[in-house]
């Protein structure tokens, strides 16, 4: 911007920075300026969940400040801003990780990185907290891969809820920039010094740095082998290099900042005291900006957790009788040439995003106007909530990690003698499905809870990997988290009465082509029911034989309590009017997976949640009781036989 503004003069700048920018644009360009949207925030510190309420300024009564932040809300606000202009960049001022809440810290801040990937961050400077765990760990967060503890993958790493493949960690899709962090061993920057994005042929450079004082506020091991250079000197040395690439638009992302000082109501778009320290001395960020080359067009600052907007859009806000009264006061911080440079900061913890419209001259490739606005990441915005409902990806990631933080996730609910995968036999029976069906029968078998005799579980609801976690050794202490992975839907149990004819119809409806069924969907059936089906028989005539033995599955091990009766023989229902109490989940009960037969059930009774039923059933297989062993005869496995 140097060439443009040097012609305008400081008098005009002092009168109105915004006007001068616009005037410069009109005077210097023959084609329309290119408008680029820069979206910035800083000091996220892994706050995937809302850090609380926050006000536009302190005039807003505490009770009226909205809840702000949360990764899904940041993502939605960023998406909204990006939708306003396809020419955009999302950038950060550092401290995206470190000093973070349990939901991120427990998993080595991988959740924060994954969330930022989904937000769509392009570049961020490093901050001091990026070095909390050392440069090798920072590189792992950048490049991906699992955290090793004592040579083995740490169990809290690579959960991968926001990575491409569960059980992996992608690393950051964005680039951490560290222009002033030098590896002593190589003399090179630890991470790239800058990033470049091109907008309609005009390149914009983003230089990223942490404060040079980082070694003084980070544990020595975290910065071992690194040197931290002066911020302004680093930028100024890079300017010729960038210009040699035809770059005139230069934005600095620096993890250093200041505070608004008196008079101060802390308006998020204020710049009270022009970021001087309260005693009138220069703040750290001022000292940096004052020495910056005139080529720098915008500084996105951080570190102090303060919100400010020192720019063409600055407002002075006063508390007049409890009402916030705003007055425009275009400003900025003076650079080496005395020109006022826009400087912004977006508080911390995802409370605020800075929305910056940048106008580029397509001929000179320089910046001709900068218009920043700080916005609260307001969780009460109806349109934002609708957007999250429409795309809950980030919300689900947050919810997933929140689950994993629960101590209950590691509570042991049973011992398994062998793996119970959700892989089906040729007949369609799953070891995991047998267990679930038995648990659902047990939960509804007492007369007061439904009086069920048979339970069916839809195969699609038995989620990967079944009760066979990767790397498990047996006997295996199954945790609630393991169980929840298999039964995550929160379905409730429904017990109903079916006639023998309906029961046969239900079994036939498992197979493609029968009563609208579009695929083979073999149900997982409970202990006591056995049947055979023929693969070659025509649709709706596949079930050859079916028997039922009343079995008390509330006891461990289960016990047969009645004689075996034949329901179907040679494809014929022997006692069509005989009824059975059958339990399924509410998904199936409403015709899910094509089981419309269940809509005809009578005497319907709602019951427990599926995961609760599972935990209650597995209590019988907790130490000191014997482990759950699918080969024990009392379990009556296999229950389904495939005939030619």
């Amino acid at each position, binding site marked *: 911007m140097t060439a443009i503004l040097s012609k305008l003069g400081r008098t005009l700048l002092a009168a109105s920075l915004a006007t001068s920018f616009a005037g410069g644009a009109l005077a210097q360009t023959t084609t329309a300026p290119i408008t680029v949207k820069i979206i910035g925030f800083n000091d996220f510190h892994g706050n995937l*969940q809302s850090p*609380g309420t926050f006000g536009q300024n302190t005039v807003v009564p505490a009770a009226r400040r909205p*809840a702000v932040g949360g990764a899904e809300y940041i993502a939605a606000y960023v998406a909204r801003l990006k939708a306003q202009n396809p020419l955009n960049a999302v950038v950060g001022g550092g401290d995206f990780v470190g000093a973070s809440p349990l939901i991120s810290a427990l998993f080595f801040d991988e959740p924060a990185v994954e969330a930022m990937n989904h937000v769509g961050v392009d570049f961020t400077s490093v901050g001091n907290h990026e070095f909390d765990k050392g440069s090798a760990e920072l590189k792992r967060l950048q490049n991906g891969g699992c955290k090793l503890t004592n040579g083995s993958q740490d169990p809290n790493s690579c959960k991968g809820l926001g990575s491409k493949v569960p059980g992996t960690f992608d690393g950051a899709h964005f680039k951490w920039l560290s222009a002033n962090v030098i590896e002593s061993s190589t003399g090179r920057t630890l991470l790239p010094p800058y990033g470049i994005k091109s907008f309609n042929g005009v390149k914009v450079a983003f230089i990223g740095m942490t404060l040079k004082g980082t070694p*003084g506020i980070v544990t020595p091991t975290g910065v071992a082998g690194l040197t931290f250079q002066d911020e302004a000197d680093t930028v100024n040395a890079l300017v010729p290099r960038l210009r040699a690439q035809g770059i005139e638009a230069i934005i600095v992302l620096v993890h250093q900042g200041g505070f608004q000082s008196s008079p101060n109501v802390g308006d998020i778009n204020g710049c009270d005291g022009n970021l001087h320290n309260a005693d009138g001395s220069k703040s750290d960020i001022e000292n940096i900006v004052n020495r910056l080359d005139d080529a720098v067009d915008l500084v996105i600052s951080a570190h102090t957790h303060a919100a400010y907007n020192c720019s063409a859009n600055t407002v002075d806000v006063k508390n007049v009788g409890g009402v916030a009264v705003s007055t425009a006061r275009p400003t900025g911080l003076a650079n080496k040439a005395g020109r006022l440079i826009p400087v912004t900061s977006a508080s911390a913890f995802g409370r605020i995003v800075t929305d910056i419209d940048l106008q580029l001259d397509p001929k000179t490739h320089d910046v001709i106007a900068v218009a920043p606005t700080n916005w609260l990441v307001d969780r009460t915005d109806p349109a934002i909530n609708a957007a999250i409902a429409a795309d809950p990806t980030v919300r689900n990631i947050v919810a997933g990690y*929140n689950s994993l933080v629960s101590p209950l996730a590691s509570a042991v609910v049973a011992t398994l003698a062998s793996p119970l995968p959700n892989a089906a036999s040729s007949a369609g029976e799953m070891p995991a499905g047998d267990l679930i069906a038995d648990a659902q029968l047990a939960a509804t078998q007492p007369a007061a809870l439904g009086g069920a005799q048979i339970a069916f579980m839809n195969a699609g609801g038995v989620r990967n990997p079944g009760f066979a976690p990767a790397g498990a050794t047996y006997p295996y202490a199954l945790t609630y988290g393991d169980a929840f992975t298999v039964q995550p839907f929160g379905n409730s149990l429904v017990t109903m009465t079916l006639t023998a004819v309906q029961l046969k119809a239900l079994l036939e409806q498992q197979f493609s082509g029968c009563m609208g069924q579009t695929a083979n969907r073999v149900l997982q059936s409970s202990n006591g029911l056995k049947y055979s089906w023929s693969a070659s028989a025509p649709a709706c005539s596949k079930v050859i034989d079916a028997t039922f033995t009343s079995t008390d599955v509330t006891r461990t091990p289960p016990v047969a309590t009645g004689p075996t009766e034949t329901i179907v023989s040679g494809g014929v229902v022997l006692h069509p009017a005989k009824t059975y109490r059958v339990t399924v989940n509410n998904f199936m009960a409403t015709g899910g997976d094509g089981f419309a037969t269940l809509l005809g059930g009578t005497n319907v009774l709602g019951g427990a949640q599926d995961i609760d039923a599972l935990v209650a059933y597995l209590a019988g297989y907790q130490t000191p009781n014997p482990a759950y062993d699918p080969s024990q005869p009392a379990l009556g496995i296999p229950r389904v036989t495939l005939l030619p």
Partner: protein
Amino acid sequence: MSAPEPLRRAILAAAICAACLAAQAHGDETAAAARLPQRVALLQRAQAELERGDATQALDDFERAAMMLHAADAELGSIRAAMQGGQYRRALASCAHTAGEHTDDADGGALYAWLLRVGGQGELAARMLASARANAPGDPVGAAVQAAFNATPPVASGVLLEPLHRMAPWPAEPGSKARPPASVRFVSNGVLVDDGAAALVPLSALERVPHARVWVRNGLGQAARAEVDRVDAALAARGLARLKLDPPLLIAASRQGGRTPFAGSPGFAMQFGDTSAPAWPMLTQGFLGTLVGDTEVRKLGFASASGAAVLDAQGALIGVTLASTTGAATWLPLPVAPPPAVAVPPQLPSHTGVALPAPDEIYESGLRRALQVLVDS
């Protein structure tokens, strides 16, 4: 706490300055703090507001101080103010940052460990405390927390009840007749019911002190006088008594139970340690068990003292724990309470989506439900 007011203020001011001086991690933070008399005054005002239970104003002033300088003192104050207002999740998230940011003294890490411990994250609390103590060996606050962690629930005493190191709420209504006298002693846990107008407490705790005056106090330090309301035969048969409260205590905006608890449902209990001082209760958790015989009493599935509030996975009050006669913890389901007539708006929305229950949400819900039962006899 018993020093004359001018002396106490002087001690507090000195302590605040000492806290500022202790914040060496940020290079020139000490000098900057010294140049900010407005900030020091703001911190003093905020601390005074906090100590008289005005959590909202205290939080506002601590946050304004934080807008002047990034330092541990204002952050710790705002964390305690958030806790005073029942905003456990906000406090916990803020404290995670403070513990990681200001590692030069143990206060941030110790408070974070305490909050984790009472919120049901005992293992992580122990790790956090160990880390904080390693960063600041010899710090008396860290040592005191370590000693307190030997008890379950931990009880704050000594240095841990001093204003700047406090691991407990302040009495929220000093000077009012609702405030229990210093001579009270803790006899039991209790549960706030009936829109905050009544409490259920173990009958045996009151039978031991038949003529005593009774108070109850919640996890926000808010107290009320209590009198036995009526003899409820059904409750008495279960070993419980109903107390009428004066004044009623506010209940947070209700969380309705998502479903009827079943054997195997996650369950939570909130209980206080043996202290007559205001305290933050501790969360225990596990799975709810089956019915006990043909009664409505159910097995708890995890340890808890009698009289503790039992909460479901949505944080809704579902019952009260009973005195054990067999060694196995049991609880009595309570009717689902309708929304309270006077509700405190929730500070944060509940997390949505299918997920395991988050103990921080549960804890926040239970802070107003769990009661200390105090007697003066």
